[in-house]
């Protein structure tokens, strides 16, 4: 199988101080949809910008379709499309004009230009609004226009940095439907960054979890969930602290596979929740820890993340980023 992306011990240090990537090793097979999942500041954007030849790595190597990102940038730029996290279309001209400008930038010759533009407009469902100023578009429409622009180049691989950030659920769904059908039609590889677990879960063939510049786990959504090893019981704990002795006591039970305490929640991984529950409750009672509420779930990617990164995917940074993107669109 040919590799679409490969990274070897990739390190990126900004300004000699900020270690954004800390030794990333990665392989993405051609034709796959690959999700890089991680919280804000994990290094997702940095990795994508290195792969798309915008930044040079501090050390290590990276390849896109076997082209070295440092030495063969121009070959790579001919076969990739990239949609940044922020907006990448001009808001003071129409959607159609944006496509026309990008078609010329991509060097599509004048004979096939009209047809190519029509085609991407149709596949993104934007024929009705193509002559409106982009300023008047909704966030989801702007994203679809950007995807349309990216598709003009008929890329072998499409890089998307947080493609649905700031969109409401129905717009997110629409964007993903378009991306999925594009993928089918062109047999391209898709590499996307996200901090939405459900997106990684639903739309990717393969997921890498990144935290603090390191890839902490790699695999398909199923494999990742399986690696958590069973089911999860979450105890809501009154008060903020659970001593190490409690964790030790729970962990020592033969039914328990893993225990993590985070944010007043004690997550216990077990093979079978129904069977294990009574004995864990007994242990907690014995230690005098009152469980306020109990829930049982199949593992989610959030549990996977918790297991390998030691924290849940946070939402704080996300909200400020969303408002930032929104503000930018408004300011247009």
């Amino acid at each position, binding site marked *: 199988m040919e590799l679409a992306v490969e990274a070897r011990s990739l390190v990126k240090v900004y300004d000699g101080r900020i270690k954004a990537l800390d030794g990333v090793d990665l392989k993405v097979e051609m034709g796959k949809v690959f999700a890089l999942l991680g919280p804000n500041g994990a290094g997702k954007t940095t990795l994508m*910008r290195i792969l*798309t*030849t*915008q*930044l040079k790595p501090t050390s290590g190597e990276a390849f896109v379709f076997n082209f070295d990102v440092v030495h063969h940038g*121009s070959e790579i*730029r*001919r076969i*990739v*499309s*990239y*949609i*940044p*996290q*922020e*907006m*990448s*279309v*001009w808001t*003071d*001209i*129409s959607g159609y*004009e944006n496509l026309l*400008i*990008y078609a*010329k*930038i*991509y*060097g599509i010759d004048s004979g096939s230009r009209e047809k190519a533009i029509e085609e991407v407009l149709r596949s993104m469902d934007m024929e009705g609004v193509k002559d409106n*100023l982009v300023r008047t578009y909704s966030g989801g429409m702007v994203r679809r226009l950007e995807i349309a622009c990216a598709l003009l*180049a008929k890329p072998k691989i499409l*890089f998307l940095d947080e493609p649905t950030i700031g969109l409401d659920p129905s717009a997110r769904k629409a964007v993903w439907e378009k991306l999925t059908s594009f993928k089918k039609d062109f047999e391209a590889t898709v590499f996307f960054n996200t901090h939405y677990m459900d997106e990684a879960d639903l739309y990717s063939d393969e997921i890498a979890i990144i935290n603090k510049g390191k890839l902490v786990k790699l695999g398909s959504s199923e494999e990742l969930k399986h690696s958590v090893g069973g089911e999860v019981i979450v105890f809501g704990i009154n008060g903020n602290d659970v001593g190490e002795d409690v964790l030790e006591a729970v962990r020592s039970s033969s039914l328990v596979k893993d225990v993590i305490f985070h944010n007043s929640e004690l997550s216990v991984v077990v093979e079978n929740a129904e069977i294990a529950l009574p004995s864990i409750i007994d242990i907690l009672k014995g230690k005098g820890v009152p469980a306020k509420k109990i829930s049982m779930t199949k593992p989610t990617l959030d549990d996977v993340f918790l297991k390998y990164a030691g924290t849940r995917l946070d939402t704080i940074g996300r909200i400020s980023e969303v408002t930032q993107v929104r503000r*930018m669109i408004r300011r247009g």
Partner: protein
Amino acid sequence: MLVMIELELRRLKHDRTEIYSRAIQPILWIVVYGPIMGGVKAIPTGDIPYTDFITPGVLIQSTTFVSIFYGLTIVWERESGILKKLLVTPASRYATVIGRSMASGVRAIFQALIIVPVALLIGVKFVLNPLYFVSSLFIIFLASGGFAAISIFVASFMKTRERFMGIGQAIIMPLFFASNALYPVKIMPPLLQEFALVNPMSYVVDAVRSLMITGDLSNLPLDLVAIAIFDLVMFVIASISFRKIIE
């Protein structure tokens, strides 16, 4: 490269308010300041009326404003993702920089085309030679490229638009007052005279003045060489700093 010029024309087609509002200030110079200062005859401008003398200067000041603030567009494009995306297209990075700079020339020419009729209306006597006129527009176009390149350079270390606005003013006003735009160089204090000698705006004004007003082309070759050197140096600097804008 040409596609960037096309982009600019399309933008202008949708929204021209900026060009109109930027024309107000130079028109005030020509309509109010020129006749008043001309009336007191304080500044020796040979046998051309004072308003005619300053018209090219004011024109260039205003087109330079347009080009310098063009950097704003680029700062904006950095805040949005457009620049990042442009970097990942097959287009050469140098072509992108030069194209962006040249696109500002388009704006500058439109600006000039608004001011010139007003000047005509109040009686400024232009050299009536279409070839001269078109040549002067061409020089404005070339010079704008260089000034836009300055602004790309400045934009490379300005993080926000607000800061850029202040810096833009701080660049243009000294260039304007320490040039031959409002008065002949020879009446300036010696120190300023030396500055005027290396001030690119002086050469641009001189070239446009000779083509539009005096018709005396004896200095034109020197002016053109100076403008060409200026453009070249600024394009190189801008291309280098372009990388920094991105990171």
